[in-house]
């Protein structure tokens, strides 16, 4: 077979997948990119003559909107607190499950992984019940130790922490599995040697576990951060961005502008701003990974 014929064969086999990606991914993304330079809104939806090309005005308007900065702040809050917390919880549970003392390992692994595979919407609705100020299980538990009821999702200062707790609970199982795989790759003799040298548990953790896990950790942190930047369903189901916009994320803002007010052009521009932010963190990840190697 000549190399030309081989390339042709490859293209034929690839074409169905390429077509699907083209129609459902590339074309919509390009369309959204064009849309972000127009003022497509509810008037344009009724009559296409009302569309105007307005250059970078949507992007300039975004920078001029206080709610965008608020949403950006909320999103960073979620990413920078929720991200590391999620990684820490996954690492902690992974180490417990990897420990020689642990029993029923596969049972616990399944239990911890269960939230990851459950539907996010159903989970969010159930957590809304748990957080209910008057009838919620969480406040009931707190009341048994004498803490007065907390309006978890109604208090602007607590709503985001409440969402972070739920999101961490929902997601940590996935990273936990990756960490378990990472931990199992660390040769046992390193620990044995350290033990013989009289290293304490915390020394072993600091000098063996963490350095050996570095590639895994970088990967997990970056995947988590990129995922967390796209926070949407949790606040959409639980708080609708409230109270006082304290849980409005960038994606929720985009959704509201696009589908509630039908400012499609503006919403598309928000999407590309988010794209640029995530791109920045992805590049950072690549740099970090290179330095690890």
């Amino acid at each position: 077979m000549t190399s030309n014929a081989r390339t042709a064969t490859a293209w034929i086999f690839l074409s169905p997948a390429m077509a699907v990606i083209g129609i459902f991914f590339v074309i919509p993304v390009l369309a959204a990119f064009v849309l972000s330079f127009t003022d497509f809104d509810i008037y344009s939806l009724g009559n296409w003559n009302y569309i105007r090309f307005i250059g970078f005005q949507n992007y300039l308007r975004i920078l001029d909107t206080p709610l965008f900065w608020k949403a950006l702040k909320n999103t960073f809050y979620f990413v920078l607190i929720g991200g590391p917390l999620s990684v820490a919880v996954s690492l902690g549970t992974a180490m417990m499950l990897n420990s020689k003392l642990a029993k029923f390992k596969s049972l616990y692994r399944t239990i911890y992984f269960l939230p990851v595979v459950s539907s996010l919407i159903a989970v969010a609705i159930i957590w809304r019940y748990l957080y209910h100020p008057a009838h919620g299980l969480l406040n009931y538990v707190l009341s048994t130790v004498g803490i007065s009821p907390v309006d978890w999702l109604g208090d602007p200062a607590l709503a985001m922490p409440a969402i972070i707790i739920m999101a961490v609970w929902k997601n940590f199982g996935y990273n936990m599995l990756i960490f378990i795989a990472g931990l199992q790759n660390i040769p046992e003799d390193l620990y044995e040697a350290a033990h013989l040298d009289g290293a304490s548990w915390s020394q072993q953790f600091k000098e063996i576990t963490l350095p050996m896990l570095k590639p895994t950790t970088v990967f997990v942190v970056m995947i988590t951060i990129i995922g967390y930047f796209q926070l949407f369903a949790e606040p959409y189901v639980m708080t609708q961005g409230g109270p006082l916009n304290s849980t409005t994320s960038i994606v929720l803002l985009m959704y509201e502008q696009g589908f509630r007010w039908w400012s499609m052009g503006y919403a598309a521009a928000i999407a590309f701003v988010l794209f640029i932010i995530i791109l920045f963190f992805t590049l950072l990840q690549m740099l970090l990974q290179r330095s690890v190697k």
Partner: protein
Amino acid sequence: MIQRLHYIVLVLIVFASGCTRQDEKITTIKFWGMGNEGEMVQSLIKEFERRNPTIKVEVQQIPWTAAHEKLLTAFAGGSTPDVCQLGNTWLPEFTVLNSLEPLEPFVQQSALTDLKDIFPGVLKTNILDSVLFGIPWYVDTRLVYYRKDILKQAGYAEFPKTWKDVLKASKIIQQQAKAKNTVCYPFFLPTNEWVPAIVLGMQSGGNFLKDKDSQGNFKGKQFTSAFTLMSEIYRQEYSPSGMQLITNLYNSFSDGLIAMYITGPWNIGEFSRRIAPELQNEWMTAPMPSMDSLSPGVSLPLGTSLAIFRKSEHKGAAWKLIEFLTSVEQSIEFYKITGNLPPRRSAWQDSALASNIYIKAFYQQLQRVDPLPQVPEWEQIVIRLQTYVEYIATGTMTVDAALKQFDGEVDVMLEKRRWMVEKGMK
């Protein structure tokens, strides 16, 4: 084996006869109802289907929180229903989309629909550029709920008719509470609601928008006086300036922590259930106080209408459903099962409504309601207004500064409209 064959034949016969009966021109129409109404309407639909055996109604219940998005998406995707329940503040959007059917021709041939019988202020919300697009299904307005005993103690056997007197009464109530070493916020104005601000603005005679609704007019004199009155209520602590204090409206009412509050008809039921039993004779409803001498003061014509989508292929059957649901007879029935107030004035003569002492004030109020600006951006504008109410309440901004900044934001929202007006498209 033979027995089994019998069954199969039987099934086939049933199946075939079912098919032919369906072919006998049964029209199926799709009806989207929102929230609780979408559920409660089912029993009326049964009666409708009994009276109209050739029409079958498929009711789809849509939660209010998702209704707006769902309708716009349905329009974009060309899958709108035949009949839909629409909040009457949404009508401008759907007429901008040119998605609704004008109803005038149907009304003219109808024996059941009598537009003159509908509260005029409410009917007006359904007419856009002098075309009728919706028939009011139930009405809603806002007025004052108050504690009779507390106002009586302050020297007001009847509820004050003007805002000036409301402020006077508030002052007395506050002083009396202080003398007893208790706390009372006489007039609770929530900082997360736009209704009181808009009502006060209307009463001050302000046009919210100007130049063919293409520019904000909030910094004008009238709206300034409305906002000043609100800031006075917060500054004098007649109302708490945050939302943390009043966690449960009904308990706060029962405890005398608040004495007056602006809200809607659904709270009649809630108050009857949730106000302390020994205080059940001590709460009442009163029409909106006014800025001038005319009583009652103007309030909002809210509620929902039924409309037909232009794309519907069964407009005749769709109209039949609207005609049925908005008739006097059925609106009384609907009131009985949901407590939703009928838009037809003659329905209020019915004993079911006449016997309820709390809804008399609503009847008076509904005679004096004025429509809001009919622009698609309106909902966005009032939601934004809430933020400024909060700024006023907490004293973060002065009235003038807040209204000037708000006006600027409204102008940005109306930019497209301005362009269309300039081009003569509007």
